[in-house]
């Protein structure tokens, strides 16, 4: 790490909750150089990226809190026909920034997670490998009970669809219809169930470079899905933002 340069903390935010702003404010109050960037403006930041360093608008990047959906529109400042291309280029570039060893990233994700809209399916495979008890899932034209639920690949939970939809949509269906969400940050559960399985799922997420996420469980506390694209409720915004900002600050202090 280059001790002669004061690194900047970057907060990329979609503005769906107050955590991004909270992190930026906390760091600025402590005189940490901080750039708060709305996701839709990300394409116009002046970047220089190498395998070992990133510079954003003239400042060496020391940490990134990437608090937005990876499929967000990053190119709103471009003409409409170019927005898709600009977004793809920005998405590809920031994925590489998140891998630079000297940059602390929240969350650090790999290409498989970064490029999927069905994050829960990726986590399921990883949790299974780690022995975490998982909710039963059936996919496609499977016969299931009406007490099951449909997990659309793009997110959310719906009732079991009819036979024709099952054939054509190849939906993922999971046992049960009452689920609970746990908000997990830095090894701690801040809301929702916090039993053994949730704790182990959190550890698995942490082992893949995650600091913040949510874990959905069924009544048997089996894990249904995990996601990094979580929205923090107002009641927890300050607490979560402070926790994340402290981690970033500690990293920048060691720079």
């Amino acid at each position: 790490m280059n001790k002669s340069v004061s690194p900047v903390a970057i907060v990329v935010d979609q503005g769906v909750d107050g955590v991004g702003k909270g992190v930026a404010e906390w760091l600025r109050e402590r005189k940490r150089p901080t750039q708060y960037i709305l996701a839709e403006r990300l394409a116009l930041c002046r970047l220089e990226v190498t395998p070992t360093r990133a510079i954003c608008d003239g400042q060496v990047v020391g940490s990134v809190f990437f608090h937005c959906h990876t499929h967000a529109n990053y190119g709103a400042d471009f003409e409409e026909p170019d927005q898709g291309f600009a977004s793809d280029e920005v998405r590809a570039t920031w994925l590489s920034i998140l891998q630079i060893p000297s940059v602390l990233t929240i969350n650090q994700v790999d290409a498989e997670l970064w490029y999927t809209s069905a994050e829960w399916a990726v986590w399921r495979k990883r949790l299974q490998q780690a022995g975490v008890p998982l909710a039963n899932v059936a996919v496609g034209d499977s016969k299931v009970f009406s007490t099951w639920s449909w997990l659309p690949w793009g997110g959310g939970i719906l009732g079991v669809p009819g036979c024709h939809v099952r054939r054509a949509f190849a939906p993922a269906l999971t046992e049960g219809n009452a689920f609970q969400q746990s908000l997990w940050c830095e090894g701690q559960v801040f809301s929702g169930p916090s039993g053994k399985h949730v704790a182990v799922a959190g550890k698995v997420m942490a082992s893949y470079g995650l600091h913040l996420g949510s874990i959905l469980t069924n009544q048997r506390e089996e894990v249904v899905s995990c996601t990094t694209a979580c929205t923090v409720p107002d009641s927890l915004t300050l607490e979560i933002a402070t926790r994340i900002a402290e981690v970033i600050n500690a990293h920048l202090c060691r720079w």
Partner: protein
Amino acid sequence: MRICVVGDPEDLSAAYLIWLAKRRGAEVIVLSENDLGLNWRFQVPRHPEKSTITMHDRVFSVHDIHGAFVRLNPKPVVHDRLGVPPEAEHIYVMERRYGLHWLLNEVPFPVINRPCAGRSNSSKPYQMMLLERHEFAVPRWRVTNDPKVMADFLAECQNGAIYKASSGLRSRVRRVDETLFTLMAEGTSPAVVQQYIPGFDVRIHVIGRTTFATQIRSHGIDYRFESEGVEYSRIEVPPLIQSLCIKTAASEGLILAGFDFRKTVQDEWWCLEMNPVPTFLPYEASTGHPIGDTILDYFGDMPSPGQCVSPLVDLVEQPS
């Protein structure tokens, strides 16, 4: 022997594999993505070992299928017969695609390639970092949209620099020129700028532990977009490079991969990228490398093609 070809049967590589497999006596089940829910469907129940694929009225256990070759169309079609409202088509296409991904990631037989494999190709800088970690020599690069950074980098590159898209979008590789400087000065998204390596291109196809190398000579910067004067020929590859390609593809979960290199006259091998959905037809047709037959061999015990040269060589008219 029974195999599936999944996705877009009109894709040239897929169509060729279908022809080749039938020629060797294999049964081919064509699972067109566009026809899911119309002439075929699948079940991956809570016990995935009981998964089945139903084509018309025939039900196949996944244990009775020896392999799948996948080519997904970037713009799949939604048939009117499905009755999906136009405003919901994009959601339907995404849901169907991910359902298909699940099937292909879960089935016990070899899939070339599983959708979860090789995702690094969607980000060129991410993949170049990965290739460096696998000990390939990668030409120096920057990702930037800053004209000053680009000018400084260009000044460091004795033989100039090229630029290309950062994402997996198929884009033409070009020499850094005034157009790019102008674009960057006006404000544009970041692009990969990379040291130009004089020499010629080499494509190495990996299928499991087998490799086929093709040297490509052309007059332009990006031979894929040249219509004339492109020459393909077989080339020997140093064992170390061969071994790195095999190991890297395997570690990324890829059975089939296409590695692109620049080779210098000093016999330096510079790795540019690893493609998880490589076309192989022009290389096979020009050199006779039996790439398609080797893919089929990977699926298991299939009658021998009876020759070690691609049948495409006889089918394609060779330039005099």
